[in-house]
């Protein structure tokens, strides 16, 4: 037993000396717990993470305006009637049905709501009421099926907002039902009822609080809602595109970093010294390694997408040009990142620890595990610091939103620029292996 303890103690000595193992054992798990806790606690559509929705009021009636105001006051929604103004730029015009649909298609928002003309005249109907489907206006929801949660939540909240913001319309509808089923109101009763309804609809004087609103179950729905998937409606499997890109990028980063580690092995074995005494300079060496790593990355991503095409019906063939563009940029950026990490680290073990930490962190906040559009806006912005986010965004544009090839120019440029920065850092850091 005492010898077994001696063996254990020997391992402890090693752990104390091996900082990389120490990081892997203790720092990485805590770091990951923190990252995932931050991602998931900041999502799930909590009050701090409202669903952005473009609202188009085509009706423009008092009722529809009250409904829009109700939507704007709803805690679960971030209702926008116009795109957010960029700093220093004038306020863009209000959404129209076309621009709202475009915004959903472009992925700026997951849902848009169109309040059609005539909504104010007959906004709702009680479920089962005879008037329910006779002339009731139907709200149109335009959705991105990649985010099914957003349209589901919006549909529920529309019912709640209808109840809380349109009490007059509700009462009117109720009276119509009473009139219908009670054998008819007398003219006096109708006149009194109209006075009450006018009072309900009248704007409240400033300072006077609204009467307490209580959400009740809307049953099968007060307001009629028609949901139309404007993105991905024809896709067989929405998550395949996401995971092909998300996991593809993550594994590319892992393999590029692993292969980049050959540089450290060459340095440790003395081979790098020998190479640099030949006609090969450090710049040539790094460029050669980058070409190799990027080529392997292109093959890896191609394999992944071809597999997705053959087995999961990913639409590869119609998107070949966009795929090629994004694949080259992604492979290049991942390779340059791997090369940079390998140059920065002194030992293979150190590289393993740093790479695991960096890549899993980038993959988590960059959306390789969990779509970024489901994260809080703050985390989404933070995610833009990662290769994963730009690569996934580009692939999603091509494969999910069916956008034209040229539309990925921001993603392509960012990835290529990031590659250049990574290579320059690698070159700078690799000086430690150059002339003494």
């Amino acid at each position, binding site marked *: 037993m005492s010898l077994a303890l001696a063996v254990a103690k020997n391992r402890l000595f090693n752990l104390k000396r091996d900082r990389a193992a120490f990081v892997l054992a203790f720092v990485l798990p805590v770091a990951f717990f923190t990252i995932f806790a931050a991602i998931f606690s900041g999502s799930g559509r909590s009050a701090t993470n409202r669903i952005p929705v473009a609202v188009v009021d085509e009706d423009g009636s008092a009722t529809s305006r009250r409904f829009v105001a109700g939507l704007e006051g709803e805690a679960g929604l971030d209702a926008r009637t116009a795109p957010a103004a960029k700093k220093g730029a004038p306020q863009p015009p209000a959404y129209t049905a076309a621009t709202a649909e475009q915004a959903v298609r472009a992925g700026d928002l997951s849902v848009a709501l169109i309040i059609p003309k005539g909504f104010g005249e007959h906004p709702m109907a009680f479920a089962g009421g005879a008037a329910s489907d006779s002339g009731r206006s139907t709200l149109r929801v335009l959705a991105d099926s990649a985010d099914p949660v957003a349209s589901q939540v919006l549909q529920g909240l529309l019912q709640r907002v209808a109840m809380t913001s349109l009490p007059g319309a509700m009462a009117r509808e109720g009276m119509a039902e009473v009139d219908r089923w009670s054998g008819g109101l007398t003219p006096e009763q109708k006149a009194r009822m109209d006075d009450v309804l006018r009072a309900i609809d009248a704007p409240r004087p400033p300072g006077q609080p609204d009467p307490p609103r209580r959400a009740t179950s809307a049953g099968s729905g007060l307001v009629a809602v028609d949901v139309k998937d404007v993105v991905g409606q024809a896709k067989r499997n929405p998550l395949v595109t996401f995971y092909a890109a998300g996991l593809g990028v993550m594994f590319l980063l892992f393999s590029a970093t692993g292969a980049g580690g050959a540089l450290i092995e060459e340095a440790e*074995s*003395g*081979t790098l*010294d*020998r*190479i*640099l*005494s*030949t*006609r*090969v300079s450090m710049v040539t060496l790094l460029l050669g390694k980058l070409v190799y790593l990027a080529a392997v990355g292109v093959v890896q991503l191609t394999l992944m997408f071809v597999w997705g095409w053959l087995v999961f019906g990913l639409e590869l063939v119609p998107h070949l040009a966009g795929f090629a563009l994004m694949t080259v940029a992604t492979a290049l950026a991942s390779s340059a990142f791997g090369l940079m990490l390998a140059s920065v680290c002194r030992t293979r073990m150190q590289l393993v620890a740093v790479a695991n930490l960096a890549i899993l962190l980038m993959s988590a906040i960059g959306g390789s595990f969990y779509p970024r559009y489901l994260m809080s806006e703050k985390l989404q912005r933070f995610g833009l610091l990662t290769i994963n986010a730009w690569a996934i965004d580009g692939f999603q544009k091509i494969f999910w939103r069916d956008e034209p090839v040229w539309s990925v120019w921001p993603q392509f440029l960012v990835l290529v620029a990031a590659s250049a920065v990574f290579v320059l850092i690698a070159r700078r850091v690799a000086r430690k292996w150059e*002339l*003494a």
Partner: protein
Amino acid sequence: MPAAPLPLEIRELSKSFAGRRALDGVTLSLSPGEILGLLGPNGAGKTTLVRSVAGRVRPDGGTLRIFGMEPFRDEARSARGWVPQEIALYPLLSPVENLWTFGRYQGLSGAALEAGIRKSLDWIGLADRAHEKTEKLSGGMKRRLNIAAGTIHGPRVLLLDEPTVGVDPQSRERIYAMIGELKAAGVSLLYTTHYMEEAERLCDRIAIIDHGRIIESGTKDDLVRKTVGGRQTLIVEAASALPAALAAELSRRGGQVEGAIVRMPVASAGDEVRGVLDRFHGANVPVLNLTLKSPTLEQVFLQLTGRELRE
């Protein structure tokens, strides 16, 4: 007509690392087809000097020329070969792939590269294992491949840094033979080693470096003459401890007596040896062994540096 530039010419080379002087005015040269042994205790500056010639260290001062060229020029890189002490090869690659890599890195291509690989494999006796993983080869085979990777491009100056470390005597002989062939082909070699017998056997000249300076250089005989002198040592082992009178007389004549063993410096082997043996005979002390030793490089080294070579 100006004299052709020497394969290697170093003048007043100096280099410091973090204030510590690794090279302090090294001057030496290498003639065509010559093997120059570089000996020195650990930390004397050998590695810095070799790495400077290999183009891996930029000196602070002095000049270093390979056939009259700066060591960083491509022509100098082609003229120079370096066999580092480490097995600086790719263990997962085969000998052919390793040779292809370093041949290509030295600027060979096409038929010249193919020919270089074939010639190298034959030269190191690995043609039949050309496609196995290098990590599967024996220590001696890896050493030979390490040499071939540094010579595939046909350098005219070769730096050999302890090429026989950790190899068995048979492989060592084979490496010696390879070095002999390089010399015969006119290659100039700068050879570092910790083995004195190796330096004595292979090197035309020897330079001893200590504290960043070449403290002595020349042929082995030159060094011996300059340091320990030309006298040989006669070692006589008697059957029993020497009588006091004989021990005292031999000590007076410069001998060192330890029990039954006497070490005597002798200038001329014949007469002096006979004289010593006569004294043993006269004292009636039987002699068991008689050895006449010439001065060794080890003695030269010890005298010059005050340290053993392996310190």
